[in-house]
């Protein structure tokens, strides 16, 4: 019941009072919105009080505002640990700054006679409430840290629930007392705005930030000449400051963003043992593949002849694959004349491996772009993507004693016996081609 008042009733009351009150006061009691005294003859206390206080509190309130207005962007930014730390650190620093400033202002308000003369009781109420609020806020950050992160899932939806008239206090009722005090304090301060000097928040001269630099027009010729220089100097100084701020900001963000990544990039990955062994396994397999290829290459370098198959294994309609001297695939068939028929299986179009099955027209098919090659002539079918015929390869039939029984050159010229009965015991080899290098 109490919770319902404090977290739903009080907020709506405060918001209504604030809005209505501010509008009423700025229309009907304009002159009451004044500083009551310029404090022209005052010493440094206003400077050392007001500046730290305002710089601190504005930064903190800005952080609260951004988190409330764009919670998704804010929470995705806060998910970067370096950003979260920086934001929390800035928050704590600014709170301390604000407390120091506010303390100076309180001392000034209760000890300086000139200032006492223009102080109302509401001023004292406000200044003490502000001090309480900011101390409670700082304690929250100390005891329940990383509020920049957890607020987006709790306080922010609670606030938007109120604004969209679907209040849901379950977001905040579970909080510890310290933080609940902070929330209640905020609503009380909001309610007090129209009755106090806090209304000066509505009179902030935002236009000053974008106002062009003022140029003084001198009556005196010498001063006019000097003023031109001074303006240029001031302008270049402004540019340098803006430049320094921009470049420093960019460098800071850059450092934040890539410093750890640059180090880890050069350090290399740190995988877990499972991933490490999978990687090594893959490398090993690829090395083994390369080793096998080198072996085959070496064979073809050293040996004048490479074994393809036994003659008895050859078939007319199904070719046997082998690797030729150019490390390209080849096919071995039994020709119609019982002689071996060896043809390259590297498609002359784009290098696909041609299929080994012979069709009814004596052709083998390359499936990549559909070219049919006649195995006797090597010619591709008309209209095929391949234009160049598949070359035939030189072979030799060797018997059990190592004698060459028959052989053929790549051109097709056969020499030696052509008796199939003798071949039955022989093995088929490809012969090293005559080198055609430069």
């Amino acid at each position, binding site marked *: 019941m109490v919770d319902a008042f404090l977290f739903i009733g009080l907020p709506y009351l405060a918001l209504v009072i604030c809005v209505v009150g501010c509008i009423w006061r700025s229309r009907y009691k304009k002159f009451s919105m004044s500083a009551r005294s310029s404090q022209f003859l005052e010493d440094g206390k206003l400077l050392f009080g007001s500046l730290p206080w305002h710089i601190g509190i504005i930064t903190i309130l800005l952080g609260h505002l951004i988190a409330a207005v764009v919670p998704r*962007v804010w929470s*995705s*930014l806060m*998910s*970067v640990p370096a*950003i979260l730390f920086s934001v929390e650190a800035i928050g704590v620093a600014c709170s301390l700054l604000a407390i120091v400033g506010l303390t100076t202002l309180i001392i000034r308000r209760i000890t300086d006679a000139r200032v006492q003369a223009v102080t109302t009781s509401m001023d004292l109420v406000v200044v003490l409430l502000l001090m309480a609020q900011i101390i409670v806020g700082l304690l929250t950050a100390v005891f329940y840290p990383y509020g920049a992160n957890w607020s987006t899932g709790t306080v922010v939806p609670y606030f938007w629930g109120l604004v969209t008239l679907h209040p849901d206090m379950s977001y905040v009722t579970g909080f510890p007392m310290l933080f609940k005090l902070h929330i209640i304090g905020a609503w009380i301060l909001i309610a007090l705005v129209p009755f106090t000097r806090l209304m000066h928040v509505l009179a902030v001269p935002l236009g000053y930030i974008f106002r062009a630099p003022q140029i003084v027009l001198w009556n005196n010729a010498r001063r006019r000449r000097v003023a*031109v*220089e001074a303006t*240029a*100097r001031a*302008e*270049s*100084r*402004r*540019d*340098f400051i*803006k*430049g*320094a*701020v*921009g*470049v*420093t*900001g*960019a*460098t800071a*963000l*850059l450092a*934040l*963003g890539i410093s750890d990544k640059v180090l880890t990039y050069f350090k290399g990955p740190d995988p877990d043992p499972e991933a490490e062994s999978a990687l090594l396994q893959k490398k090993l*397999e690829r090395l083994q593949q390369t080793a096998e290829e080198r072996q085959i290459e070496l064979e073809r370098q050293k040996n004048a002849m490479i074994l393809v198959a036994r003659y008895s294994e050859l078939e007319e309609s199904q070719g046997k694959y082998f690797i030729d001297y150019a490390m390209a695939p080849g096919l071995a068939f039994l020709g119609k004349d019982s002689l071996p028929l060896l043809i390259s299986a590297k498609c002359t179009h784009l290098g696909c491996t041609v*299929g080994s099955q012979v069709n009814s027209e004596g052709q083998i*098919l390359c*499936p*990549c*772009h*559909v070219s049919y090659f006649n195995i006797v002539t090597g010619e591709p079918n008309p209209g095929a993507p391949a234009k160049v015929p598949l070359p035939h390869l030189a072979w030799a039939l060797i018997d059990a004693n190592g004698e060459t029984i028959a052989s053929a050159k790549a051109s097709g010229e056969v020499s030696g016996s052509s008796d199939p009965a003798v071949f039955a015991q022989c093995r088929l080899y490809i012969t090293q081609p005559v080198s055609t290098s430069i």
Partner: protein
Amino acid sequence: MSFRTASLPALILLIGFAALPDLSAYPEFQVYVAESTGRTVNCAMCHSNSDGPEGTGPGQIGRLNPAELERLGHARSAFQPGQEVDSPILNAFGNHIVTSIGKEKFVELKAAPAHLAELLPPDSDLDHDGIPDAREYLDGTHPVNRNDGNPILLFKHNFRTNFSSIILTLAATISGVWGIGHLLQGFSTASRLKDNDHDEENL
């Protein structure tokens, strides 16, 4: 992009192969994906070896040791869904299919490969690229390769995941360019000043 004309005889060849009873690969699915998406696909979508399970290369049946053959046998007999399988000739997606659908249903799907996507669990994403595996099957992209997928879907997913980095980089670039711009302006104003000073002195 159309490879239809090239694939018709290849289709016949592949289906011809599939008619042989002792084959364990299922090319109907490959043919369906290649035809419907226009993308080139190979056996690596579901198998460990991109040339398929037949052969003696790594991830193929001819190279399995006894322990792996046992796993293969267990996977081959997983007719009903729900059994965890780890077949050495299948990759994570292939094993996922067998686990979630069961071999019996899968073999039935050979007649209607398009329906495989409907039977797979809709929120499974094995490579964590933001695209569900069923969708990757239908798109013809590799379900176990994080870098392969429909570029637009990958863009959306990666944009959301890296949103903070993008925002920060944008902030750093804008701040840096703005800053350097003003520095340049400052230098130019200052150097004009110096000229005026020199002129003054020379006067």
